[in-house]
């Protein structure tokens, strides 16, 4: 089996995640979409590492996984904080940055 | 291929049988500690048919689903809860060559799969749509996040000493000296491991998630019949699995004179199981904040320091680096 199916699978997964991030109303839902996108990236990295016989890709997957965990922890801390203050996690209502 | 499937099937049944009788062992043990007799009537004189009777009783009970439950989640929860508990046995070597798959990342596989259990637990708590169940699941998340980290860290100490993630290699490295007898490091790590084990099994004194007097029966309060049986089975299977891990990591697995390897192994696992049970029936429950504080303020720093010390020790030439 070639590398191509893996890359295409990752691309589809990435776009599903992108779709989720673009359309979800709930901040947590958006985070879930981001997780999917990152996951797609990991699939790419591991697949390419396998086919290029270079562990660099695996090392970087390790990095992305651990960074994602940290990101989720902080991201959700922010979500909870927003909820505490504004009693909502609807992304539509979170427009304090509005110009 | 067919051989593997067959082996898996046999293993599954053996494990389930052992676990079924573990409940019996625990009940008898607890009864002795409290000067009672324990199960007695079914299968006189020692009540040795009691687990079978229990299983049959639960199987023929009516399956109740709460009206407001999140049905698919509620129904799937026991299975999701049970699966990881059974999967962890895939990598456990019972004796040299006796085991399904002796992965070269065995211990990591064990830790990873057993961490999935929380998903099933939470599905049950959430799906029941019951405030006790949900509170219990919340507490479980708190506690398991807190104790997962020290648990992994203590499990890494034997890994460092043996220089391998492969469970059979870790056991082989203990030829001559079990890691529990390793000077200083071994004992401290073992104590930390037992504490983290008790917490990860949600046993007294860390059983806040099913604290009967507060939460009725915790996340499984709405379950009955077969599903309840599955949850119980999963819990005891997990306990047995962790006991096996402890036997592998610290007590030298199948190593021992005279008896065949698998017998030694099971005895050691039983020993850890009884140790935990002994703690369970001896202590009182402590508060949620105390449990979390113990994990983050005492256990985690202590195990991290221990891990660092082990690292230095190994770097200086101790250990069995391959």
């Amino acid at each position: 089996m070639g590398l191509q199916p893996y890359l295409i699978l990752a691309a589809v997964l990435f776009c599903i995640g992108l779709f989720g991030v673009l359309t979800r109303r709930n901040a947590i839902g958006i985070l879930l979409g981001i997780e999917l996108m990152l996951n797609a990236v990991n699939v790419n990295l591991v697949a390419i590492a396998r086919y290029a016989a270079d562990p660099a890709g695996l090392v970087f997957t390790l990095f992305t996984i651990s960074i994602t965990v940290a990101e989720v922890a902080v991201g959700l801390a922010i979500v909870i904080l927003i909820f505490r203050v504004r009693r909502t996690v609807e992304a539509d209502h979170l427009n304090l940055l509005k110009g | 291929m067919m051989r593997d499937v067959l082996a898996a099937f046999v293993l599954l049944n053996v494990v389930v049988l052992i676990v079924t009788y573990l409940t019996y062992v625990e009940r008898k043990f607890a009864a002795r500690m409290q000067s009672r007799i324990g199960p007695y009537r079914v299968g006189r004189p020692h009540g040795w048919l009691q687990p079978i009777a229990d299983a049959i009783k639960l199987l023929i009970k009516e399956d109740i689903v709460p009206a407001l439950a999140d049905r698919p989640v509620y129904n799937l929860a026991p299975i999701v809860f049970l699966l990881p508990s059974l999967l962890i046995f895939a990598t456990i070597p019972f004796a040299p060559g006796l085991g399904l798959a002796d992965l070269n990342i065995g211990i990591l596989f064990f830790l990873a799969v057993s961490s999935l259990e929380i998903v099933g637990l939470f599905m049950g708590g959430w799906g029941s749509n019951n405030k006790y169940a949900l509170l219990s699941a919340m507490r479980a998340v708190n506690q398991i996040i807190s104790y997962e980290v020290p648990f992994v860290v203590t499990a890494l100490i034997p890994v460092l000493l043996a220089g391998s993630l492969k469970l059979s290699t870790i056991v082989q490295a203990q030829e001559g000296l079990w890691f529990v007898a390793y000077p200083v490091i071994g004992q401290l790590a073992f104590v930390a491991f037992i504490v983290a084990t008790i917490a990860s099994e949600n046993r007294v004194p860390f059983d806040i998630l099913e604290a009967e007097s507060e939460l009725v029966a915790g996340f499984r309060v709405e379950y009955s019949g077969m599903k309840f049986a599955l949850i119980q089975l999963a819990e005891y299977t997990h306990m047995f699995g962790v006991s096996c891990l402890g036997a592998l990591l610290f007590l030298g697995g199948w190593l021992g004179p005279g008896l065949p390897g698998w017998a030694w192994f099971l005895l050691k696992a039983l020993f850890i199981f009884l140790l935990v049970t002994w703690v369970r029936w001896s202590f009182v429950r402590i508060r949620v904040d105390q449990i979390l504080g113990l994990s983050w303020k005492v256990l985690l720093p202590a195990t991290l320091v221990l891990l660092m010390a082990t690292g230095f020790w190994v770097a200086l030439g101790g250990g069995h680096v391959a």
Partner: protein
Amino acid sequence: MIDAGTLALAALGLPFGAFVLLAVVAPLRRAGRAAGALSVAAVGGSLLAALILWRTFPEAGADTVELAWSWLPAEGGALATVGVLVDSVAAVMLVLVALVSFLVQLYSLGYLEDETAPALGRYFAYHSLFAFSMIGLVLASNFLQMFIFWELVGLCSYLLIGFWYAKPEAARAAVKAFWVTKAGDLGFILGIVLLWAQAGTFGFSELFKMADDKTLPLGGLSLIMFLIYLGAVGKSAQFPLHVWLPDAMEGPTPVSALIHAATMVAAGVYLVTRAYPLFLQTPDVLVLIGWVGAFSALLAATLGLVQADIKRVLAYSTVSQLGYMMAALGAGAVGAGFFHLLTHGLFKALLFLGAGAVIHAVGTNDIWKMGRLFGAMPQTGIVFLVGTLALAGIWPFAGFFSKDAILAGVWEGGLTVPFLMLALTVFLTAFYMFRVVFVVFFATGHAEGHPHDPPLVMGGPLWTLAGLTAGVGILFAVGGGGEEAHGPSWISPLSLGLALAGIAFAWLTYQRRAVSAEMLARRVRPLYVAALRKFWLDDLYGGIYRGVILGLSWVVGWVDRYLVDGLVNLASAWTMRGGDRLRRIQTGRAQDYLYGVAFGLLLVIVWSYWH
């Protein structure tokens, strides 16, 4: 026999262990005296290791022992190594450092008995850190590691000068010491990095080998060595960066004895000694070192004449003696300079500890508030006298031989003018030191209270150092004056004569009052005033700061306020109008921005089709 590397590591590790224990185990630290005992025990162990190392060194077949571990792994080999490098210089220096540290810590137990327990614990934690850092500096096997320890001792110096941080002068002095030495350190690290860029290594052994084989690229080496020397200028308080050392006397006296007399300030000299094979490649820098050293010696000696604070006199004499060492190094007499470093370490620590005993007994630093103390504190008087004689360079004390060797070395090195400065300094040194001795111990006047000799825990170190100061000298006197002094035969009588003249002059002025000090001051009024004002150097630095920097800031401020702001205001007016139109794009919803990201991604992909 334990091998040298292990011993060196033990000497290094013990104080570090003590420091970590004291830093981590708070109850132990707060216990005060227990912390002190631990720290003293650790550094005592270091001393033992150092002594064994010194006695058994050099081992058969190797005159340097190097242990190295690679550090900072990178593609294409490790970037640097850490390790210990022991040779005869390091071994001797190690003994000095461990010895003085040990004695001073012991002494501190008595000197600081009035401190609260937590403060005492903190003091000893710093001391342990200092001992570790200084030993690490001595044993460093490469420039990078040396720099790290160099900064660590600087940090300890800062912490210990500011030990009484509630006292504003102490806090200010700590900061001043920190910044002034940092100015030198900046040069040091620049030099190291440039050297690395040139030679590709930090390691001493490799660099010396390259210097030996003439493979060291010489282009720009003068600049590099000058920059490295700047570090030594800051640490060893050479002109013009000497201003921090007198102020550093705000710290506890044992600290002054240890850090600002015997060990840390000598680190600069040690650095030059250590890197001497490299300095040899750049004779112009060496000449500069010689001149600056001699000038520092003379300048500090004149400043020492007018101080009323006993510790400040000693501080200036430290600067002066460091100048001697540097001058010797500059003239090529490495052995003499290093020898003086050792003897000076002993007798200056002795002097400071003696001064500390006096201060402890009298409760003031001002020499005019003391007097006739010899009767009350005979032991202190005797040891102080021993130290003073050594510092003045009187036969047969240790200072005589080392100073003699330096004078001979500088003369032989052909630096005539620096030689004259140093010779004059000999006279001045004897004069101002005996000024202190006569005023404090013999002349009229009386101290308040009932001063008495210090307790054994303080007296022990004093007598030990006094014995060593005298003993080393006698050893040399018997042994024939050392090998270094091979200058003309008239140098020894000259320096001895100058020193004796200085003592006699001081005796006339301050004991017999045959010469009036006031009249002397009037005669050389400009010089007297200048010395009182520290030759306006501190004022100059302050003035530079106030005049140049603040003036520049004012100009910059004006430019900023009117020219730049004018442009900015103009730009902002346009931006505001533009922004008002653009703000509609900014909805504040993260997802709308993500559309932008997605479009960007699309653009990148489409663009890549053509490439």
